């Protein structure tokens, strides 16, 4: 049976080996990027310079500067090894000089481009082979790698970019890295660098490069790289956690294991083990073995066992619960995998016959211990090493005894009736059947049935009949068989029952854990995980449960289940949270509390607390339940930790995106504000300073320019304000407004922009929408202005009711939208390629924001009936406009009195 509460021994061993290997082998640090040009080499050189400044012996093995001055400048002052130049078919290929590097043996060697393929004739086909050899030689390596070169991602990258990546590095190499530094650059900046010729393109020349460096590709690659690094962080956390199941740091010397049972004497064992551990400066483990196939402990024993284990825990022991058929075997197996050097066990206090009958635990321990020392301690009181078995619980109560009595009575009656037709052997057989059946109910009923059968058989059928005297000694054998059969069968039955029950329990626990894991595995939502945790804990343990996580103010708040908690209960949870230890009812800390609080841990930090409370009165969980609770807590901790990581990753992605937006905003704004300002300044100063030399026409032109540019400035500002408003969330003041009025308002405001361009309007007079009139007019205005700027007349404005929505179309006869840009046009700062029309590219983004705020949508497409684009706004109709009070259709002279 695998114990969920303790680390898998195999995994632990592998971990230790990995750790040892890592210590022996030199460090590998990888500067990891999403695509060429993000600045990995630059970052590596910068870090090398810092190391150098700190006095580390850093040498540049090979670094590709690609002729870039800023990168090359970083090489200044660093020791650069000469390259080994390989002549391959007339081409001189400069390679890393592996031999020279091994001879030079610097502390840190920089080797750029892990994925590089060495020139034919080199010692290794790939550069990463060289790096491996250098690492083996104990030289710390700093290198660079792009995500698309990872072997396992080759297919994905090809799917995304359409570029087949030939130079790959096995994932094992990246996993070997002790440190990965992600070099991240927003795609926009990368594209800018590319445009400025700052990115060196070796393999993907020409078209391939164009295909590769698409914004979409870069975004996808960036995500791949970020995820890859995030996954690594996750697995490191898991590794840390599984290692954390045992004490750390891993000791080289002594390790002590104490066998804890339910007897009061175990307390003394625990304290003795603690003293020994202290003296040896050794970590220690308190182990309890739950014997398979043995009857479970009684309530009193269970409480005592738990107290003993808690004591051990509070004294600094790692507590493990093992289960196995044979206690000694289980303990020794565990001790061997854990490098236990000493086992502390109790001196037996029971009678010797029990050892003869069942085998002595101590004896088995000593025989099987091999190199492990066994310390035998005398308990103060009666009691022995684990576990103190108590009498069978099975068959308690009077009920199971009624039917052995009945069976004997029936058989006796039957025998009396059919006495003339049956031999005594037949009757004995009948009794045996009765005993067998009765034995299924447990040992007690078996004994009762056996005794009664013997007595009844003797009295009624064994001559001399109706006396307890026996004429023939052979009958004694019959009696013995009857007893023996009863005992044997009942013992087997009891054992089977227990096995069955613990199997069922195990199965139930596994199923509960599985269900829980399934529920939280894919969830990265903290609340969902908390709710699932509370529900599963409640269902599995039959208690009320709450999950508490720290809130922003540093307090603990319940986010799922049982709420609200009293201040005292929060305090218990708080203690558990701060000390990363179980607290509350039935523990050593705050045992008077009504709740039991178990910390939820992810890696080295506590991410929350699960608190449980019995429905009626507080109760101590049995080991099995504690086990389940611990397993849940561990899973929940990991899930919450993962959710936190996800959230953090998302937040940092958001920050990056905001940063990116801000920089594009700044560049767009500085361009779009500066240009008109420059024109206005120029024209105005000309008018002021040089007016004498200007003709009337020139003056008029300058003045027109000033007015035009000022208007342009205003539009830019209006859209900037608009986007800020829609992005920070707008409060709509909705009113029912005729679409006609909205369209009319927009067209009136655009009168000068539209000029004499033809505008065709097809809007039903009775069509109304519930919108914010000011914002919605802005939407229509932007769309019409867009049609004027980028399209060609006639511009058509058309509105229709469609089911429960109103559709407004603004179409033009211009060149239409670039294919594939139908969505992009609504992006902030999108400018149609080659467009010279003024504007920051915010107008349509504002439109989309306003439409979305109204629960509607705006889409763009090319007209199907000839050239031109059409923008379609859809606004859902909610409710109906209030009908105005009726009035006479025409003005009657009598009643009109203005």
């Amino acid at each position, binding site marked *: 049976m695998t114990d969920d509460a303790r680390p898998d021994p195999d995994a632990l061993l592998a971990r230790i080996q990995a750790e040892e290997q890592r210590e022996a082998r030199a460090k590998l640090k990888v500067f990891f990027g999403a695509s060429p040009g993000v600045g990995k080499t630059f970052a590596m050189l910068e870090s090398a310079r810092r190391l150098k400044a700190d006095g580390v012996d850093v040498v540049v093995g090979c670094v590709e500067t690609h002729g870039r001055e800023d990168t090359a400048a970083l090489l200044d002052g660093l020791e650069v090894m000469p390259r080994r130049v390989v002549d391959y078919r007339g081409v001189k290929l400069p390679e890393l000089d592996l031999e020279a590097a091994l001879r030079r043996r610097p502390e840190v060697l920089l080797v750029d481009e892990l994925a590089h393929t060495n020139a034919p004739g080199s010692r290794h086909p790939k550069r990463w082979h060289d790096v491996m050899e250098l690492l083996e030689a104990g030289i710390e390596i700093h290198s660079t790698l792009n995500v698309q070169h990872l072997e396992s991602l080759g297919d994905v990258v090809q799917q995304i970019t359409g570029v087949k990546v030939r130079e790959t590095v096995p994932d094992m190499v990246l996993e070997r890295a002790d440190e990965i530094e992600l070099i991240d650059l927003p795609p926009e900046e990368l594209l800018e660098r590319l445009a400025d010729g700052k990115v060196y393109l070796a393999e993907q020349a020409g078209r391939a490069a164009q295909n590769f460096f698409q914004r979409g590709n870069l975004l996808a690659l960036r995500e791949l790289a970020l995820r890859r690094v995030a996954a690594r962080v996750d697995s490191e956390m898991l590794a840390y956690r599984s290692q954390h199941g045992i004490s750390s740091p891993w000791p080289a010397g002594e390790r002590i294991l104490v066998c804890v049972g339910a007897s009061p004497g175990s307390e003394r064992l625990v304290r003795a083990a603690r003293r020994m551990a202290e003296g040896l400066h050794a970590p220690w483990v308190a182990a309890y073995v739950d014997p398979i196939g043995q009857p479970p402990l009684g309530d009193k024993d269970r409480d005592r066992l738990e107290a003993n284990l808690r004591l051990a825990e509070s004294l600094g022991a790692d507590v493990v619960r093992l289960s196995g058929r044979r206690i000694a075997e289980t303990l020794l197996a565990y001790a061997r995998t854990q490098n236990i050097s000493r086992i502390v066990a109790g001196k037996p206090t029971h009678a010797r016959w029990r050892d003869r009958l069942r085998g002595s635990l101590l004896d088995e321990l000593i025989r099987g211990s091999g190199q492990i020392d066994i310390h035998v301690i005398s308990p103060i009181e009666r009691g022995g090493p684990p576990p103190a078995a108590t009498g069978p619980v099975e068959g308690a109560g009077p009920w199971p005894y009624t039917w052995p009595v009945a069976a004997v009575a029936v058989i006796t009656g039957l025998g009396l009736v059919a006495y003339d037709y049956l031999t005594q052997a037949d009757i004995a057989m009948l009794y045996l059947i009765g005993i067998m059946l009765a034995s299924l109910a447990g040992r007690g009923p078996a004994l009762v049935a056996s005794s009664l059968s013997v007595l009844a058989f003797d009295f009624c059928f064994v001559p001399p009949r109706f006396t307890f005297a026996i004429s023939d000694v052979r009958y004694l054998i019959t009696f013995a068989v009857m007893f023996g059969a009863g005992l044997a069968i009942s013992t087997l039955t009891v054992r089977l029952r227990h096995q069955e029950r613990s199997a069922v329990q195990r199965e139930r626990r596994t199923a509960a854990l599985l269900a829980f894991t399934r529920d939280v595995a894919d969830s990265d939502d903290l609340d969902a995980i908390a709710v699932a945790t509370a529900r599963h804990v409640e269902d599995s343990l039959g208690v009320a449960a709450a999950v508490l996580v720290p809130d922003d103010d540093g307090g603990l708040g319940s986010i799922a289940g049982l709420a609200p908690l009293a201040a005292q209960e929060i305090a218990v949870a708080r203690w558990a949270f701060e000390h990363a230890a179980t607290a509350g009812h039935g523990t050593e800390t705050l045992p008077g509390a009504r709740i039991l609080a178990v910390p939820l841990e992810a890696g080295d930090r506590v991410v929350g607390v699960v608190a449980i409370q019995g429905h009626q009165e507080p109760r101590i969980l049995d080991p099995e339940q504690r086990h389940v609770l611990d397993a849940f807590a561990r899973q929940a901790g990991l899930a919450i930790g993962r959710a936190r990581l996800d959230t953090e990753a998302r937040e940092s992605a958001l920050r990056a995106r905001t940063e990116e937006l801000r920089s594009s905003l700044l560049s767009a704004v500085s361009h779009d504000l500066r240009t008109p300002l420059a024109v206005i300044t120029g024209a105005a100063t000309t008018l002021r300073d040089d007016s004498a030399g200007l003709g009337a026409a020139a003056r008029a032109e300058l003045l027109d320019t000033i007015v035009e540019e000022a208007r342009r400035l205003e539009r830019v500002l*209006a859209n900037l304000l608009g986007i800020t408003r829609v992005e920070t969330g707008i409060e709509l003041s909705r009113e029912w*407004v*005729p679409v*006609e009025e909205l369209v009319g308002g927009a067209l009136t405001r655009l009168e000068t922009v539209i000029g004499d361009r033809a505008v065709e309007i097809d809007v039903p*007079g009775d069509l109304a929408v519930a919108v914010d009139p000011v914002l919605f007019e802005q939407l229509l205005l932007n769309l019409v202005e867009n049609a004027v700027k980028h399209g060609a007349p006639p511009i058509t404005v058309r509105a229709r009711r469609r089911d429960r929505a109103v559709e407004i179309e603004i179409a033009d006869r211009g060149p239409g939208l670039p294919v594939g840009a139908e969505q992009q046009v609504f992006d902030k700062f999108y400018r149609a390629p080659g467009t010279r029309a003024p504007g920051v590219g915010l107008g349509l983004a504002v439109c989309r924001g306003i439409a979305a705020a109204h629960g509607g949508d705006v889409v763009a497409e090319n007209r199907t009936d000839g050239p031109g684009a059409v923008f379609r706004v859809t606004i859902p109709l909610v409710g109906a406009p209030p009908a*105005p009070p009726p009035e006479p259709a025409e*003005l*009657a*002279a009598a009643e*009109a009195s203005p």
Partner: protein
Amino acid sequence: MSDPLDVVVVVEDEPQMRRFLRATLSGHGFRVIEAGTVADGERAVAQTPPSLVLLDLGLPDGDGIELVRRLREWSRVPVIVISARGREDDKVAALDAGADDYLTKPFGVGELAARIRVALRHARGDGGAAAGAVIEAGPIRVDQARHEVAVDGAAVKLTPIEFRLLVLLAQNAGKVLTHRQLLRDVWGPNAVEHTHYLRVHMAALRRKIEKDPARPQWLVTEPGVGYRLRDA
């Protein structure tokens, strides 16, 4: 556009804006008195008294709307408020508090001159507001005594509400009327929230008055504020 004695008080805290207004208004023959705060503005109006007040709504020592309210307690001097786009609520509040019209920053000198002209005309009572008179605005002719409306000489039949709306707008031709003002005057004080009624009747009115109701030339919508009948 002005009598030689016309004085305009400009309440505005931005020196550049004051300089522009001073230059422009002086050029149009006004005498300009400048104030940078609500308190200075109120004092200037009390001491002068001016023919018109140009009032910026955002002032360092208080809200321009408050100044409008205080002025209206003792003065009927026309007030034109100046405010930025997107502050429709402020404009409506100022107008409902008694301001006569508004200008949205930035504005051209043509717009400024037109607003001032209309405000001065209405203040002098020669805006055709006399009850029973015939009012003409562009092609629209409203005969208040006969309850008759004609557009380009052709008679148009209006409902009582449409007629009252048109009369109100025509009496204030060139000036903006807020939704609230129109609703109160046509439907009564209990109807001031029923903007939808107003919109429906304005739409009907446009259909009868305008050549193309979706591109109105005369009954102009001031988004978020109200309506204005253009004066030719």
